[in-house]
């Protein structure tokens, strides 16, 4: 019995190292358990007890100071992790701000003893700790510490330090649990962090502590404002920035919730894109829309209508203008509808009109009618209410049939338009309309251009039949989209691709794995083309596999607020979007026209 008591005493006394005292700090290495178990991780801590008025520093010390550092001297086979920092206090020093600890702090570290450790002899781990302890005056100190622990096959909590270490671990910042959402966006002078807490959580105060110096100004107040169901926190950029401020990476503290470790990219502000650039892109996109498979067949027929008239038609300026008016008014109406719906709180982006099965069905019917018309099986005249109305309506029709297609450049320009609002968005949609109407309007306006059109003949009838084919294909495709939207959710037919979620990307990044997200929709023609021509290829899939890249598909065929938010955070409002997430780097958005070369360049860049 006495022997057992002696053994017990020996265990408890051995499981410590002698504390080292400096005039301001008592420091020691402590362990959560009373023995080392081979192969099992154990939490040890550097305990710093500071006299009143003095403080040490966090991993980001703030305006000045230096974080505490532990250099381990471990026996063979042992491994030690990084310091797991408790939430620091804000310590103002005059007009400046430090992040650190007063009183007592336990800086936790996970230690892993080797699996082949032999029980019997106690083991000593050593460390050289370096810190800066300041009051008004600052003193850097270097101290040698050691911790001796017995080795056993089982260990229980340490009599003295087990509970305090467990309590410290319970209060460490955690990654945001289910129900919390964060987005960050660039603002004038800094950034703002959108916080969407789960229902029932009411934030009255919050503060963001960045992991890195030189990004956020430490002493600046961070105003918290309500925004819809959530909040927005203003982060002022450092007055003397070091490096770009591209990610909001740090700890969000609030008395009303747990300390949350967050790491979100900061989406660019569209004013930076410049209205002029957005207009240029929209105009180019509008021009290119004429070449998209949705629009080209019908537009070609209209153009060939001029060929029939030949130069004799003179300037058809009026027709051209009416058509352009049709195009512009349709774009304005769509923009207004989108703005109204978003103001009502819906998480919508471009292509929203195709997320409704009813709209898809109507479009399919429309394309069917057009195709039948071109095949000569169904006659109707576009100019139902008379020539002028007919031209106007054909402009409207052109926009309607263009909606499944997104031309290159349109994605960025539309992202700008949808997320900025008011007169800027109006101008961008106008530029898009002008670009789209221009080729036909030019043909109408300048009889000389029509000289270059081929002379009419029987070949025109044959051409019409041929051009009906892409339209039939569109009908079949729209029917398939309709089926996707109203049928039950089909199981993933492609095992290489997992369904997308923001949490999945984050957990893959935390595990060090890059991921590639394909934002797509069944009604998006460019998406389908890219998927079949590039993303489904064996060699491309092999490229991804060889680099350990996880493949995620974000299917926006039906409305999905999470996907809409993710697109908005990337500066997009529609699909397709191809995004490469590499751990530790901001997301890379690839161009809408994918090629294997571009993919490889991004993967290896």
């Amino acid at each position, binding site marked *: 019995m006495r022997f057992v008591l002696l053994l017990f005493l020996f265990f408890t006394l051995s499981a410590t190292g002698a504390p080292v005292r400096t005039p301001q700090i008592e420091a020691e290495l402590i362990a959560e358990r009373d023995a080392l178990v081979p192969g099992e991780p154990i939490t040890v801590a550097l305990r710093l007890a500071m006299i009143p008025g003095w403080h040490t520093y966090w991993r980001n010390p703030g*305006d*000045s*100071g*230096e974080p505490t550092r532990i250099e381990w001297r471990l026996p063979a086979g042992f491994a030690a992790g990084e310091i797991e920092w408790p939430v620091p206090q804000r310590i103002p*020093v*005059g*007009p*400046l701000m*430090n992040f650190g600890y007063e009183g007592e702090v336990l800086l936790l570290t996970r230690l892993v003893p080797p699996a082949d450790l032999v029980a019997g002899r106690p083991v000593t781990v050593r460390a050289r700790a*370096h810190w*800066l302890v*300041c009051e*008004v*005056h*600052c*003193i*850097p100190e270097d101290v040698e510490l050691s911790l001796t622990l017995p080795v056993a096959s089982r260990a229980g909590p340490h009599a003295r330090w087990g509970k305090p270490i467990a309590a410290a671990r319970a209060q460490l910042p955690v990654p945001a649990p289910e129900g919390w959402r964060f987005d960050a966006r660039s*603002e*004038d*002078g*800094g950034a*703002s962090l959108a916080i969407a807490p789960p229902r029932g959580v009411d934030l009255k105060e919050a503060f963001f502590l960045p992991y890195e*110096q*030189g990004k956020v100004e430490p002493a*600046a107040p961070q*105003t918290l*404002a*309500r*925004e819809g169901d959530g909040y*927005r926190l*203003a982060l*002022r*950029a450092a*007055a*003397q*920035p*070091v*490096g770009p401020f591209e990610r909001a990476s740090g700890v969000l503290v609030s008395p009303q919730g747990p300390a949350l470790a967050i790491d979100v990219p900061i989406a660019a502000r569209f004013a930076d894109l410049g209205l002029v650039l957005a207009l240029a892109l929209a105009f180019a996109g509008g021009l290119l829309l004429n070449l998209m498979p949705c629009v080209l067949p019908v537009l070609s027929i209209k153009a060939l209508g001029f060929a029939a008239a030949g130069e004799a038609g003179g300037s058809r300026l009026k027709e051209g203008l009416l058509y352009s008016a049709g195009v512009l008014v349709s774009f304005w109406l769509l923009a207004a509808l989108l703005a109204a719906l978003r103001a009502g709180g819906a998480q919508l982006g471009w292509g929203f009109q195709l997320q409704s099965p009813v709209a898809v069905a109507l479009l399919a019917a429309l394309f069917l009618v057009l195709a039948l018309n071109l095949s000569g099986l169904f006659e109707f005249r576009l100019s139902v209410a008379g020539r002028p109305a007919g031209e106007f309506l054909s402009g409207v029709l052109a926009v309607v049939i263009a909606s499944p297609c997104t031309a290159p450049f349109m994605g960025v320009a539309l992202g700008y338009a949808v997320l900025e609002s008011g007169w800027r968005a109006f101008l961008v949609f106008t530029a898009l309309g002008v670009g789209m109407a221009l080729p036909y309007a030019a043909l109408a306006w300048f009889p000389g251009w029509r000289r270059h059109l081929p002379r009419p003949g029987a070949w025109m009838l044959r051409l019409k039949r041929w051009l009906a084919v892409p339209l039939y294909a569109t009908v079949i495709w729209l029917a398939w989209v309709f089926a996707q939207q109203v049928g039950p959710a089909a199981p993933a037919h492609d095992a290489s691709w997992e369904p997308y979620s923001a949490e999945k990307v984050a957990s893959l990044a935390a595990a060090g794995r890059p991921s590639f997200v394909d934002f797509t929709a069944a009604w998006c023609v460019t998406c389908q083309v890219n998927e079949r021509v590039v993303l489904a290829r064996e060699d491309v899939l092999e490229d991804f596999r060889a680099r350990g890249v996880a493949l995620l598909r974000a299917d926006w065929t039906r409305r999905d607020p999470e996907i809409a938010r993710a697109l908005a955070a990337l500066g997009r409002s529609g699909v397709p979007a191809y995004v490469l997430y590499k751990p530790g780097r901001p997301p890379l958005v690839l161009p809408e026209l994918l090629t294997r070369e571009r993919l490889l360049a991004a993967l290896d860049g």
Partner: protein
Amino acid sequence: MKRLAIALVLAAATTAQAATVGKPAPEFTAPDLQGQPVKLSDYKGKYVVLEWTNPECPYVRRHYNSGNMPALQKELGAKDVVWLAVNSTNQSSGEFKTPQEMAKWMSEKGAAPKATLIDKDSKVGKLYDARTTPHMYVIDPQGRLIYAGAIDDKRWASTEETKKARNHVRAALGEAMAGKPVSVAATSPYGCTVKY
């Protein structure tokens, strides 16, 4: 509306003039150890190094005791670079040094700045948003700030390690004088807090 409010708050805050790399360095006047006023514009046309210093700070002492800072001051002085050491410790602070005390300390350490400025109202420090001692700024002959931040890339190190550290001030001046862009133009400064 909220977004506008946030933007306004942030914009208003940033109108406070701070020394930012790439922009003109703010003009100031401060007395030297003999009480004579020294203006930044006195040295237009030359490279100027501003060094925030405080003899009570262990980081400053490390750089002076090892001879690191005095050697750099002499080396750059020989290249006609104007080195101004600034002590912005507020006169109400326990660490405040009078001109005589400062002169004595500088001469003991063999320091060789062009001038040492006593910024007892902390005005120049706040103008430059100096946060630590040491905190270094390099200004080009056109008056533009080309470097702001730490003296070197090793926060706390032995004398030997300091010799192997990358001295950002020496590197920035070397590049600028050779007509090259400054490769590392901004770093986070380290050291004790400036005692405002």
